């Protein structure tokens, strides 16, 4: 007969049981809201599934078709281009702002709040606001450029400028990155700077030889999160492209057809849920590989305080 006598359990066993009970809501949520949908998505990626009829097993056909699909490669190119433009810009801008706001200047707390505030606002409303700002005829941006005698581009209406417009839009929310850098900057021991000054190091040398290495763990953190969020970019591109001109998803002429936008289009506009699921798994594997590569490279450029290199 099975006995479940808690009274005879060891303290360690009881503590483990209590711990599992406390995290059980999360485990249940993870199982049913994350793991099971992932498993279902994996299964669907090997099927022809149009949502309305039962899935039909097709093996690797979705993946084969994907690699032959020009729009798949086009969407990857758009996403990569965006990442190449926005990631370095947000890292550099965020760090620069943090360094500036780490100085003893008047109203520094107000400035920090003002720079952080845009990152709190997000989503559809902000994107629509930017659509108005980017309007080539009456938008504020072109109006300011006109003051300097510059004829502004078509921005979101111009296939050559739509993607840079989204990059600019994304930089508006750099406050979140800035705050994390600011916390990191304030954790750098000041005696390092004092010692460097005594040795005659100038401002740039101190920044290059102390600030950057000491901030490398934070940069590493922001880089990993930045890559993940860049490859999941969707809302702003979707809203912006639907708000201009022909309301083409990822327009104009697919210049902002991000990978996730094409995934959405495949699943919910074209009713190709199996195809979209295959796209989702390719994205997952790709971002995973990229993250692993960054982690593998980290010993070469990320310095943790107290870590000794090359010494046993």
């Amino acid at each position, binding site marked *: 007969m099975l006995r479940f006598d808690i009274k005879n359990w060891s303290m360690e066993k009881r503590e483990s049981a209590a711990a599992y009970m406390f995290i059980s809501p999360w485990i249940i949520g993870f199982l049913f809201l994350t793991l099971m949908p992932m498993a279902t998505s994996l299964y669907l990626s090997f099927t022809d599934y149009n949502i309305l009829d039962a899935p039909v097993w097709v093996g690797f056909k979705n993946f084969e078709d994907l690699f032959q699909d020009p729009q798949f490669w086009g969407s990857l190119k758009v996403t990569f281009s965006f990442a190449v433009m926005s990631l370095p810009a947000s890292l550099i801008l965020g760090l620069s702002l943090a360094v500036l706001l780490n100085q003893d200047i008047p109203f520094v707390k107000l400035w920090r709040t003002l720079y952080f505030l845009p990152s709190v606002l997000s989503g559809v409303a902000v994107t629509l606001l930017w659509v108005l700002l980017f309007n080539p005829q009456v938008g504020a941006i072109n109006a300011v450029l006109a003051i300097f005698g510059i004829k502004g581009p*078509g921005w979101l209406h111009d296939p050559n400028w739509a993607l840079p417009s989204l990059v600019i839009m994304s930089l508006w929310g750099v406050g979140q990155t800035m705050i994390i850098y600011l916390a990191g900057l304030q954790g750098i021991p000041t005696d390092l700077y004092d010692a460097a000054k005594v040795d005659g190091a100038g401002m740039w040398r101190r920044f290059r030889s102390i600030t950057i290495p000491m901030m490398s763990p934070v940069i590493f953190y922001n880089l990993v999160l930045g890559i993940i969020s860049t490859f999941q970019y969707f809302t702003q591109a979707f809203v912006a492209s639907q708000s201009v*001109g022909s309301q083409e998803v990822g327009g104009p002429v*697919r210049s902002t057809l991000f990978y996730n936008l094409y995934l959405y289009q495949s699943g919910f506009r074209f009713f190709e849920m199996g195809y979209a699921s295959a796209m989702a798994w390719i994205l997952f594997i790709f971002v995973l590989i990229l993250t692993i590569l960054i982690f593998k490279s980290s010993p070469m450029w990320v310095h943790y305080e107290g870590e000794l290199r090359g010494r046993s």
Partner: protein
Amino acid sequence: MFKKKHVLLVILIIATLAVSSLTFAQEPVTVTIFVGLGTGTSPEQIPPQEALQERFNSTHDDIQIEFLIVPNESAHDQLTTMIAGDNAPDLVGPNGVSTIAKFLDNWADITPFIEADQFDTSDFYPLALELNAYPDLNTGLPLGLFPSYIYYNVDLFDASGVDYPPSDFDDTSWTYDAVRERAMLLTLDSNGNNASSPDFNADDIVQWGYDDSWASTRELLAPWGFEGVGRPTNEDYTVAMANNEAWVQGLQWYSDGIHVDHFIPGVDGQAAMASAGIGTPLDGGLVGMFHSHTWYLTELGFDGLLFEVQIAPVPFNPAGGRVAPIHADNFTIPENSKHKEEAWEVMKWLTAPEQIVDVCLIYGCIPSRQSVSDEFRAALEENFPGLDYDVIFESINYLDAPNHESWVPQWGRAEDTINFAGNLIVTGENTDAQAVLDEANETIQGLLDEYWANQ
């Protein structure tokens, strides 16, 4: 005593079963009507739909209807979920041709119902019956039509001294060349030079002669005389024909109109109109002629216009024919509906001569029944006085069949491909209509081949 109790128990059971079976037999079937994929969701349309529901329910004992009105933005996903969850509504509509095409495999065929009832369809406009009928599937009785024609700003024509478009359907001088000529005279820069003038500044246009920016690429090209009209394939959907001569000619006319002759607003012009807060191309007073449908009457802000509006037929195409693209609505029965017979009865009621005018007034369409056209015309004239209503009703006879929204294999991707070709032209990324349609045709042929390979 024991036997008496058992007898009483048996009598009680029998009586209960009899009453309950009687109750079940009398319980009416509820037909759920899903509204949201097209028109029908604005606040003004809800009370009349509720009144229609009450009208039906008070006159039918065996069937009751219930409108399920879903916001447009979520209707697509909600319907998909309902069908996938085996909880399909019984009627869906009003649906345009494109919506029907999008979900084509999920509609019931009403042909058996028509044959069983020997239902008389002769009162419907004959071409309207074709719009949602496919070789193996008739998706529904036609409800309403939205013919298209040219809206024009009379004041702009008067100010420029340009002749009005003719309203006579037999006037063969009204061609796309004539549209171009008049549109160029109506297109002005800030100095008042028209597009025909050597002093015209194309970088400073303040008024355009013609606009068709609300049309999909297939709708733009359907009037140009291709034998497939609005369908980019051959009759059995096996050969892609999007780069046919007529469509290339039409798309090049449109491309030249934007980038060479400048009488059609391009991306910059459309952005200018949008930024000026102008809700529709015509009511801002910046466009001389605008091709659209009868539903545009409700969008135009007719009462508040500061200028006179009139309408004219779609011009003749180079092949000597006339095609006026049409939008058409009907109700459809999902294949998974559990009450198809009852839904068919409701569909007949909604499209019956006694109701169709009221139903169409709710949804802003022209009834598909010829016998009520005078009655509906009177209602239209009351709401939108002064228009040449002969143009509206005569345009129905020139509708595009196959329709520009009609089904083709892999409909979503095919539409996206053709619209992409049109957007390449509008944005100026490629102004060569032959090149963009050749590329689109190649893609569509690939889609067709893939579709048929999987059948």
